[in-house]
């Protein structure tokens, strides 16, 4: 439980640090809200014009957006050091800071950055859910739990994307794009993709578990599928931990640059 108390303090200090600049704090949140809103408007127009496309209608989109934005918001509100920023820390030798403390390095690193704009995502996700009209307590419960697992999966994926830097050098941009790819795929109706692309969405870039699967969980009130999602989250965390710590053995702490050649 010490770990939780520590993470809570870390989140608090992150928030305090972000609020030092109030104007940019607010404009970032509002900006993200607009950003999500535009995509939302696109889908409103889209389904208004075309009706049902491959089994997806506006109702599914409300739910999809609610889950993905809430999950993404929760993930990056607390655990922002994944993907590109994790790769940057690794490549620049900035992990030193975390390594001298008597704490779990992975958790400490990942939870040390708060992406302020995610407050906009969380609010957006909750508001989008209101549009679905699904107010049965069971559905609300499944929705919130799914969002938590989505957050866990996104963080685990981001850890793996960022850990590439241990093996390949400075992968900041590639790691960031991997995270972006995951998120973009999750936000499109899963039924658009067939064949190899579909297989990929359940394996290499497991965006289906972030978007399509949680949507089904809520729609079908499928508790069993929720358990499956929890299993995927656990599996991905196991993988992410293994990749990160395997990489850590190769960590160079920026020392290689200073060595006499």
């Amino acid at each position, binding site marked *: 439980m*010490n770990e939780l108390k520590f993470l809570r303090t870390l989140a608090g*200090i992150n928030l305090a640090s972000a609020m*030092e600049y109030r104007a940019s704090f607010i404009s970032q949140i509002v900006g993200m809200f607009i950003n999500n809103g535009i995509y939302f408007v696109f889908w409103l127009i889209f389904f208004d014009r075309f009706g049902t496309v491959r089994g997806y209608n506006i109702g599914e989109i409300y739910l999809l957006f609610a889950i993905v934005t809430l999950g993404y918001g929760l993930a990056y509100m607390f655990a922002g050091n994944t993907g590109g920023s994790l790769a940057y820390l690794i490549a620049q030798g900035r992990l*030193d800071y975390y*390594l001298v403390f*008597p704490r779990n390095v992975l958790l400490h690193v990942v939870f040390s950055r708060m992406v302020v704009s995610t407050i906009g995502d969380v609010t957006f996700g909750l508001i989008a859910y209101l549009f679905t009209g699904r107010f049965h307590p069971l559905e609300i419960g499944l929705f919130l739990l799914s969002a938590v697992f989505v957050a866990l999966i996104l963080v685990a994926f981001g850890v793996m994307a960022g850990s590439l830097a241990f093996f390949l050098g400075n992968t900041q941009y590639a790691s960031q794009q991997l995270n972006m790819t995951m998120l973009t795929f999750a936000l499109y109706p899963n039924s658009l993709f067939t064949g190899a692309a579909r297989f990929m969405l359940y394996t290499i870039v497991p965006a289906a578990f972030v978007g399509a699967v949680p949507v089904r969980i809520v729609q079908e009130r499928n508790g069993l599928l929720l358990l499956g999602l929890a299993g995927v989250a656990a599996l991905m965390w196991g993988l992410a931990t293994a990749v990160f710590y395997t990489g850590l053995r190769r960590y160079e*702490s920026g020392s290689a640059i200073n*060595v*006499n050649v």
Partner: protein
Amino acid sequence: MNGLAVDVSGLVKTFQVKQKAPGLRGSWRAVWQPAVKEVTAVADISFTLEEGEILAFIGPNGAGKSTTIKMLTGILYPSGGQASVLGYTPWQDRRTLGFHIGSVFGQKPQLWYHLPAEDTFRLFARIYELDMAAFRQRRDFLVEAFDIGHLLQIPVRKLSLGQRMKCEITASLLHRPRIIFLDEPTIGLDVVAKQQIRDAITYLNEEENTTIFLTSHDAGDIEKLSRRVIIINHGRLIYDGRTSALKRQYLTRKRIDVRFAERLNGDELILPGVTILKRGTYGLKLEFDSRAVPVEQVVQQIMAVKPTQDINIADPPLEEIIRDIYQA
């Protein structure tokens, strides 16, 4: 009876470094067939350090100092060899060891930049799982020792370098580490701030028996703080002994830069035991061993030659001393 704080034997660290020939053609070739070269940062280092000792660990840039410290604090995995810090193997027992060591890396701040130092202290209390009452007591004690009470509420970005360094060191001492690694703690500081930091380090060592592992480029830090010096170069240990012995042997060489008011003829000042490094139209650069020839004697003889405009006496730079030791 003190135990061993650090026990290192045969420690080795190598890195794979990508090579690239200069120019566009080199870049092009590096894209398709990158050449990798193995570079040795630390090659077979062994030494021990007793609890309560102060050690100055020095060497030129790129000698392997930081790499060694990083292996001893569990940041880097070694490529070979053994090390034990307070009985733990740093890269295996990193977390447990973390409770007992403190570190200050002069160029890598630990304090949160946009927040007052006090906030980082509180975070550290959580990180090290300190009892809150004990934490407050310890903090108040350190705040008084470093005289930083008036700085605690100011965002770190607004502090001067010296003020910031004092807060950095305070932060790393909150959990009463048994050994503290200080990497260039006085870099860029003014004389007063340097002295304050040296005093505090001495105090810690004397009162709390904290083992101090120090790297510095400042000869003053080494002379004033540590009784023992280890010098490394090219990843190898080239000197391990008392600071006083090092001084007797190597810090006795002095350099004098003189500028005369009149033009030199070219045949002045042929003194036994004094080497002329450089001879100009108006100036001379000399080097001598102050054990063989006393400083006063050299100065007197210089003054006797011609009226002087300026005289400057200095120790040779640390890098040169190290080179001398290395060649010896």
